[in-house]
């Protein structure tokens, strides 16, 4: 597979480490009332869709960027690649 890195251009997926579902970005608020339940979901539950899947790829053998990649699990077609830090900010994460 080839992942089109937003900064570096097309790179072979062999340079990356697959980090699974990008839902990892949505770390629950530990002070929420139902924090325990939320953390159980966050820690253990993942969707396993046949189709588009939003996932994290870590450019470990490259610039160490975490990328959010939208990949169809049935065709390996990649429809979008973004820097994870940008996506995280978009989801309201900051400091």
């Amino acid at each position, binding site marked *: 597979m*080839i992942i089109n890195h937003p900064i570096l251009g097309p790179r072979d997926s062999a340079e990356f480490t697959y980090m699974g579902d990008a839902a*990892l970005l949505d770390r629950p608020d530990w002070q929420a009332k139902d924090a325990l339940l939320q953390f159980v979901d966050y*820690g253990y539950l993942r969707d396993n869709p046949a189709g588009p899947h939003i996932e994290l790829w*870590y450019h470990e053998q490259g610039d160490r960027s*975490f990328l959010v990649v939208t990949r169809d699990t049935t065709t*390996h077609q990649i429809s979008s690649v973004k820097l994870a830090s940008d996506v995280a900010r978009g989801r309201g994460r900051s*400091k």
Partner: protein
Amino acid sequence: MSQINRLGGGQIDRTKTLDFKFDGKSYQGHDGDTLASALLANNVRLMGRSFKYHRPRGVLTAGSEEPNAIMELRDGARQEPNTRATTAELFGGLTAKSQNKMGSLRFDFMAINDRFSNFLTAGFYYKTFMWPAAFWEKVYEPIIRKAAGLGSISFEDDPDDYDRGFLHCDLLIIGAGPSGLAAALTAGRAGAQVILADEDYTMGGRLNSERFSLVDQSGADWAAKTVAELTSLPNVRVMARTTILGAFDHGIYGALERVSDHLAVPEVGKPRQILWRIYSKRSLLCAGATERPIAFENNDRPGIMLAGAMRSYANRWAVTAAHNVAIFTNNDDGHKTAADLHAAGVSIAAVVDIRQDAPLSEEYEVIAGGQVVNSNGRLGLTSIEVSLPDGNTRALPCGALGMSGGWNPNIHLTSHHRGHPVWNEKIAAFCPPDNGPAGLSVAGAALGNFTTAEALASGACQANAILKDLGIKQNKVVLPLAEDAPANMTPFWYVKGCSRAWLDQQNDVTVKDVKLSHQENFISVEHLKRYTTLGMGTDQGKTSNMGGLAIMAELTGKTIPEVGTTIFRPPYTPTAIGAFAGRDRGTDFRPTRKTPSHTWAEEQGAVFVEVGMWLRAQWFPQAGETHWRQSVDREVLATRNSVGICDVTTLGKIDVQGADAATFLNKIYCNGFAKLLVGKTRYGLMLREDGIAMDDGTAARLAEDHFVVTTTTANAVSVFRHMEFARQCLWPDLDVQLISTTEAWAQYAVAGPNARKLLKKVVDPEFDLSNDAFSIYGLRQYHCVRWTKSAFV
């Protein structure tokens, strides 16, 4: 022994005679021969035994689709099993052995299995070895294991190197027959970056196997001339002996180049094979087509082969399997073989054509509306039985029989991404699917364009369409005029009433087995494959699958496309594991990391342990110590009572800098770091999100905005990965940067009551090591040395 089956002409070099051995007996062939063509030249038709019934078998094909003539090549550490004699290039001194026999090839003791064929039908193992259960491990399995498998391995290390390489191109052309060459010429002259790969050692595909000419030159000459031009173009890479194994994602193809398989020993500095990863913008499949056999009773005797292969042997290698040959065909192409062999001086016993309106010949007999219903000859064909249209049967003596049941496009790569092949009624074969791998086009016989003129034209046309897509100026190449006769064909898969008629010769699957499997309710074609083993093995059913599908279709009352095909998967042809391993063998399997004191430790006779790819000195045995506990106990006591030094460079070290460095560490450790004073070190524990301990180490504060974190040796990579995740994905706005400095700093732990005394000897006097100046968990930087004092190692 003389080459009594050698004909005139051909593309072999008669000035170079090569000696080789088969089953211990010496023979001679010529440069340009394959092992199979050289054996046929020497009148060797018997080349192996079948897998299950140990029936005598000869060569069926002239290419990589070969199911029968698979052999063990070479001796000693280079011995390799299951190699197809049809693709093995002959070299001087080659030794080959037949496989799958007990005793000699002519008298195989396991041939008794053939007598019990009524019991050894499809599903025999599943039905027979069920009871008693206790028998499985002790009795059945050892016997089956002994009987199973094909060739044997040497159990020695392969002395050759295997490499891996990476290539990039605009257009990858797979196959260098007429369509591939026309495409390469078109794209190459237009200036595109082209890779042209072909599994054969001589490019040209069927052009080398046919007698017709392209205007004023032979097909082989045109191919050679074209390849020479392509080789001269700097933007074209011509790769012979290179098989494209599979179509992977995003235009990536796997390719195996057999650099030295045709040599007794690779040249110095050259690998045996290279596994290439080819990154292509576009690709064009020009893989040609494979001929289909026809199933009839006892159709597996040595001497019975595909008619197109016979033509290859005659025209390319100047060889005939026998001097009296019959043809069994359902199409016009079979007649070409008869004409070519006749022209080469081979006597044609008859052409048996299932069609009433078969084209007749003045030179030899054509039996229109006839069928071959049986064959005779224990170790090789001696005669066939032909049923005539009038209902009589006639015996026809012959030493070889060419079968032609039509041709199947080689569409394998087009369904590597699960694309479903499309049935083409006109050629009664599956053609490439519409939903093949993105960027892959198909041309020539692989697309069902079977005439040479069609192949040339479609290759050029597809190449131009690709050039247009890539924004490269198109190029009109003038192609030579070529034969354009449609090969009329009437689909015919098997002779009615036959039972021991082989569909899959490698796995000994007969028409009877397919019928039995249907009778036992195996309806899906994938189940048929697993139950009967049809289409498994080294040839993956390249010559056999269609026959099985046709019979299944008939039994179920469906059409062939309704029955469907099994899915093709990579690799296209068998590939040595060594090629996948490449250079990653032995100590090169992964990097070895050595500490700064490694050489010294080695000199002291240290025993090393591998941790996180590091070699770490575990203990230092001294004279007289016979057990590791003796060495370790001595070292522990020395440290407790005096002083000990340990090289802890292997610990992970991560430099953390930025205005929010302290905030960041506060978040990733379960204990606090915000209040850690500059010049102090603190122990830290990291937890996973579910509260389980992940790693521990120390963090030292060098400045307000500068920390150094240590990790355990084994978790250095995963902790750094986790910290990057936290920095980029959880708190993207924190002002903090991370650098792994594990290998930038040597690290030593000095412990024991005399630690300070020892250190005093190595530091300058002004460096105060007193408790007041250098307190517990204190941190000092002195020149390029950092000192921490801690109660944790």
